[in-house]
């Protein structure tokens, strides 16, 4: 695990535990991945798999009051983020790495104009005057397809899709090197989703930004990502290039995810969901966290630590079947 494939972003053994009502919530349990410059990784998984927590841990904006324990290492361009003093981290946030939040309805401050909210980030990270920052904000709004004369309006005057564009404009205002997009399209209807994804792709190419795309939508992954990390119960259970994952899904959970998608070609009356529910993060099962729902689970799955097996090239899978089948 110590080799650094990429010199841009490298996450090693990230662990985040929350406390809630006296119990420990094991949200993220040893996540490691790398990301090259200009690349996009998709973090895919069900609600509660720890995707957003991973993102917030990278930004170091986890809710202080409920975090019990974090460990691991995050290096961005050789700089270790986890041990950085808060004021230095503050200077990186919004400039080196920034985040598009999940829910545009609540991510904008209702009492500030959208231009002010975008300009604030610009002023914090660049030595510019107030009016220059506002000009930049208007430029960003135009870039995401909002007319500059709406700059002085408040979030409540915008529709959901436009709010999401504002959130995106805000995240991109300082040309971040790493953009974390936390389900940027989940709150939007399908027509707007396509527009927003296209826009993110365009901007990414224009600014050669690296991106972490968090989603539970495999369609979004297909459209935007180079590599995919499937997360389950706070672990990456399968990792590979988009082609690896889409063409050769190996982990029974990944296979289940694809089976749960509606297929236009076969006329199945019902979808085939994955039976059962994600495990309780306060009480994770022994061994493989997916074993209670896995049709192939054996006694060996229910004890010990399941290792990460290489399937082929960069394609890895945390399942003992992968070891038996492929090695």
């Amino acid at each position, binding site marked *: 695990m110590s080799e650094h494939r990429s010199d841009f972003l490298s996450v090693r053994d990230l662990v985040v535990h929350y406390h809630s009502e006296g119990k420990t919530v094991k949200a993220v349990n040893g996540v490691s991945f790398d990301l090259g410059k200009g690349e996009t990784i998709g973090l895919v998984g069900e609600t509660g798999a720890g995707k957003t927590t991973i993102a*917030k841990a990278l930004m170091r904006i986890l809710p202080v009051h409920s975090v019990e324990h974090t460990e691991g290492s995050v290096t961005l361009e050789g700089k270790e983020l986890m041990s950085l003093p808060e*004021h230095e981290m*503050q200077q990186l946030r*919004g400039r080196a790495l920034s985040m598009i*939040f999940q*829910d545009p309805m*609540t*991510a904008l401050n209702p009492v500030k*104009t959208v231009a002010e909210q975008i300009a604030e980030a610009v002023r914090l990270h660049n030595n510019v005057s107030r009016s220059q920052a506002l000009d930049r904000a208007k430029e960003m709004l135009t870039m995401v397809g909002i007319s500059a004369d709406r700059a002085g309006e408040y979030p*409540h005057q915008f529709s959901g899709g436009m709010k999401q564009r504002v959130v995106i404009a805000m995240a991109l205002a300082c040309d971040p090197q790493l953009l974390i997009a936390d389900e940027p399209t989940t709150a939007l209807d399908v027509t707007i989703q396509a527009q927003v994804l296209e826009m993110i792709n365009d901007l990414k190419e224009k600014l050669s930004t690296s991106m972490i795309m968090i989603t539970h939508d495999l369609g979004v992954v297909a459209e935007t990502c180079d590599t995919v990390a499937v997360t389950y119960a706070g672990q990456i259970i399968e990792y590979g290039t988009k082609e690896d994952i889409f063409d050769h899904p190996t982990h029974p959970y990944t296979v289940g995810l694809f089976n749960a998608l509606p297929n236009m070609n076969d006329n199945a009356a019902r979808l085939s969901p994955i039976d059962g529910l994600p495990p309780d993060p306060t009480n994770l099962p022994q061994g493989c966290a997916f074993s209670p729902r896995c049709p192939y689970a054996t006694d060996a799955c229910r004890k010990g630590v399941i290792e990460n097996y290489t399937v082929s090239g960069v394609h890895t899978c945390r399942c003992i079947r992968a070891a038996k089948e492929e090695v």
Partner: protein
Amino acid sequence: MIRYVLKRLLLMIPILAGVAILIFTLMYFVPGDPVEIILGPAATQAQVDTVREEMGFNQPYLVRLGTFLKEILVNHSFGNSYIYGTSVGAELASRFPKTLTIAAFSIILSTIIGIPLGINAAIHANKAPDHISMFVSMIGVSMPNFWLALMLVVLFALQLHWLPSSGDKGWNYYILPVVANAVGGIAGIARLTRSSMLEVIHADYVTTARAKGVPERVVIWQHALPNALIPIITMLGGRFGGQLGGTVVIEQVFSIPGVGAYLINAINNRDYNAVQGSVLYIAFTFSVVMLLVDLVYAYVDPRIKAQYEGQSKKKRKVRSSGKAVSQNG
């Protein structure tokens, strides 16, 4: 916005008219009248009857109400006090600045101490600083202000001789009354600020601000606090409006001739004109303060401002569509 203010000002007319009629009626039905108090216990029934007749207290309800309203509308006067013989309006005007001084400084003190205390408690929620400030403010809320006022007098006036104990001969006479009056407010505002801040401090937009790299102090004061202000403004406005009507206990303890002391004496003496004048004055100042509070809401929260503007816009639309209908018909 101007339309909204005009509408609110016009609305004050029926409110004040209602208050005037109500307070007159209440005083009419309250047993006892100023004559017995003016003449004292030694007066004979015949004397009392004569004076009563002279002062017009034997006239029917509607006649007296009419005289009262005419006096206000035509002569812009509340009449003279039966007890002191002075003009009620002039008396209120001379007492108002004293009450305003106490009320305004109490509110300022509550704001500049209460809000930071509450924010500090919210930031450190469920940790030592929170527990300490909430414990202290619990004492502040539950302590009766007359008792606190007396304790302050004992300490700072009688023991230390730093400040005068009563009267209003200079600015230093107001320090103890303002402090005694403000403590409850400080504690109340601190507790309200804490709970209001706790509601917004974990909001997504606060996290967004952090994710932009905004320093924590700015996150709290510029992103979280403005969103937590509405209930705080409501409470401050309510307290201010109430205190402009007189801080009765404080005025009594420190012998400050304010509006509250005047009203209490007037009620005890059945001094009809003084009571009616004071109550109308209180209704007026309270309405004005509430209007100011609503305007501050609009300043703080653009959504509320949009509502105010929307109301008048909607009306205009209805009117124009009404016109269209009548043209069609």
